[in-house]
């Protein structure tokens, strides 16, 4: 009897080991990619952040925590971070709410909704570089469409890509693509239980009450996912800020208006303008920590409001 039990236990253990190995075998390409393309570069950046490397010299003078001290005390860094957070505070809610409202509208059986869905989603497929350059032409002071429209009302040309106006232009460019999220929300809206919607209608609930008590809880996991994703991508915004800068023979990161000197623009300039790879790496490591903290806060705060139809803590009994 004992022998049979022992044999059975060993057999079960071997089966589980095979399952485990199979699992890790299937995800090994991803694991390898993460190790090579994420873990190693991050580790290398961490090492470089303790040096004063210029990116091309064969030697890297060790400076210890000096770069981190400079990052944490530099007014320019705090200024860039605060501008970035301002962008986040404006763009993330506007994107989430705007996409959701558009998705709800496009979920209704309205005439021509396929055409509207296509038009609203189109900006999402325009490459970011092309979008920034097109908007720069539209906002050009002397020949742009915006100033020509304003001229018909007798308003003098406005310089949209310099000074504080550049920040408004940046927001326009970033919010132009809020239609990208409607795909996700449309899919989420299809998962809302039709019976619950009908039950709410029968109980006399109006559209807003139905949305608040039935639709919103049902799509809350998607909302949390979109919020976290939008937060992370918005924090890292760089291309529109750089490409909206005035072009000229000396087009460099330094031509980015002060209003648009976001954190990643500053990181880029440290690396490729000032050749301060060590300092730039320290900025990146600090930013990674900031992103982690903000993401954790969103999960903590948002997670309390998320409704899961199935308890994620439940596990299937496999054997």
């Amino acid at each position: 009897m004992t022998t049979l039990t022992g044999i059975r236990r060993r057999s079960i253990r071997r089966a589980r080991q095979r399952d485990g190995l199979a699992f890790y075998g299937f995800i090994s390409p991803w694991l390898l990619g993460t190790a090579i393309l994420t873990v190693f570069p991050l580790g290398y950046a961490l090492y470089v952040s303790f040096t004063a490397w210029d990116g091309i010299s064969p030697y890297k003078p060790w400076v210890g925590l000096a770069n981190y001290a400079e990052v944490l005390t530099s007014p320019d860094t705090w200024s860039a971070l605060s501008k970035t957070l301002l962008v986040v505070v404006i763009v993330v809610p506007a994107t989430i709410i705007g996409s959701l409202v558009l998705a709800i509208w496009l979920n209704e059986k309205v005439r021509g909704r396929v055409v509207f869905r296509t038009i609203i989603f189109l900006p999402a497929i325009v490459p970011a570089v092309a979008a920034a350059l097109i908007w720069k032409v539209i906002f050009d002071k002397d020949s742009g469409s915006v100033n020509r429209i304003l001229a018909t009302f007798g308003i003098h040309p406005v310089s949209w890509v310099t000074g504080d106006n550049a920040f408004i232009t940046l927001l326009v460019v970033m919010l132009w693509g809020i239609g990208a999220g409607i795909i996700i929300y449309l899919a989420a809206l299809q998962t809302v239980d039709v019976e619950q919607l009908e039950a709410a209608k029968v109980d006399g609930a109006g559209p807003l009450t139905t949305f608040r008590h039935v639709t919103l809880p049902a799509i809350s996991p998607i909302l949390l996912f979109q919020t976290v994703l939008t937060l992370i991508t918005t924090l890292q915004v760089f291309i529109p800020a750089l490409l909206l800068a005035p072009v000229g023979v000396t087009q460099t990161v330094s031509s980015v208006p002060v209003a648009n000197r976001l954190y990643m623009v500053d990181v880029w300039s440290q690396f490729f303008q000032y050749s301060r790879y060590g300092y730039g790496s320290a900025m990146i490591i600090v930013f990674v920590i900031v992103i982690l903290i903000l993401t954790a806060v969103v999960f903590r705060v948002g997670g309390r409001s998320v409704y899961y139809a199935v308890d994620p803590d439940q596990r299937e009994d496999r054997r």
Partner: protein
Amino acid sequence: MTQDTGVTRRTLIAGAAGIAAFAGVATLAGCAPAASGGAAGTAKKAKAGTVTIMASPGEISDQQKADFEASHPHLKLSLINSDPTRANAMLAAGNPPDLIENSGIDVTPYYAARGIATNLDPYFAQSTVIKESDILPINDVWKWDGSTQGKGSRYGMTKDWSQDSMWWYDTQAWSDAGLTEPDPNKPITYDELLDAARKLTKTSNGTTSQYGLYTLLPAMDIIEAMAATNGGRVLQPGLAKVDFSSPEVKAVLKWFLDATKANVSYSPTNPSPDWDGPEYFAGKQATVQQGYWFNGYLSSTAPQLQATTKFAAAPMLGSKRVSPSFGAVGYWIPTKAANPGGAFEFIEWYCAGAGAKARAESGSGLPSIKSYLSLLPSNNAFTSQSLAVQKAELDYQQVLPLATPYALASAMNAVVTPAFAAAATAGDSAGKLADTLNTAVNAVLANGKVQLGK
């Protein structure tokens, strides 16, 4: 996942950390201080195969590529577009192009001090194409002896150059404004130029259809050049500090602030959508501050403007006539180039041989070789006038202290240009701007000293 598999999340994370740590240690092992690349080695023979060149788009035409390969059948050229970011990455990876196009005035001390530019003295010594006596003094900008640019070993060669404080003007615009044309050979003062620009600028309902002055780009090179005409100097001896607060340099800052305020040009507060050339061709600017190379550019791009364009001597702020080059663009060979011998054969051909000859004949810049000066075009009134003015200006060419081993010009200009924009917007005085620039630029240089371990 808590199955008893022997392979757990914990062991996997530990393994990944181990991989990263191993890779980091392996990288660290390669990071000991290297010996300086300044000492001359021996000239390596060209290897049959590819020579990879990083150059401006369109710089080396398909025809030129074919001509070089026909005359050098053992070599094939592979061209990469100039990109400072990509160049940095390739240099950092130890896999650089064989040749990189750069401004000799700007980069020589920086790259030579870091030991990543090849000392070309042995190559020049054994060259049968380039004669030492035929090399124009502009090539001295590629020399560096560890402390002074213009002396020591050669680290590159100029392909062509111009005296970049010179300027071009639209004679029709000048006449329409009721102005007497300047004497092309007698330098105008910067104040006279600004006064003329006020009259040349056409504005209506807040929209400017023509700016009288060229695009204002307050950068280290033009500031240093203007200060030199005033007997001043920005980059101090030792090349580790700048001083914008001398009276001579403050006069330059004041001129820029006044010119920006006058709104007679594109400027840091009114950025140009393009650069001088296209804006001039479109009639948006009545003047252009570019060197002799603009002669070839205008002739090939907007030949209809030849009849109404003239070349003029570099303006002066003070009483000393100085007309430097800001670029002296050419080629240098990284120490880790795969085919340095092949790269130098290209330098010989492009900077001193058939390639240089063709460019001199097109008037696209002054040649690097004395004997090619006679090939510069003079086939119509425009090219004749340009050449005459240029020849008279050659006597005033001077190598100014524009470069330092502690920072590239782009790093210093990255703080100079925004500082100007902020000062012009705030209405700051030249004195306040000078203090701001001293703090900002000296910080950049100080960081560069740390990078070199000083």
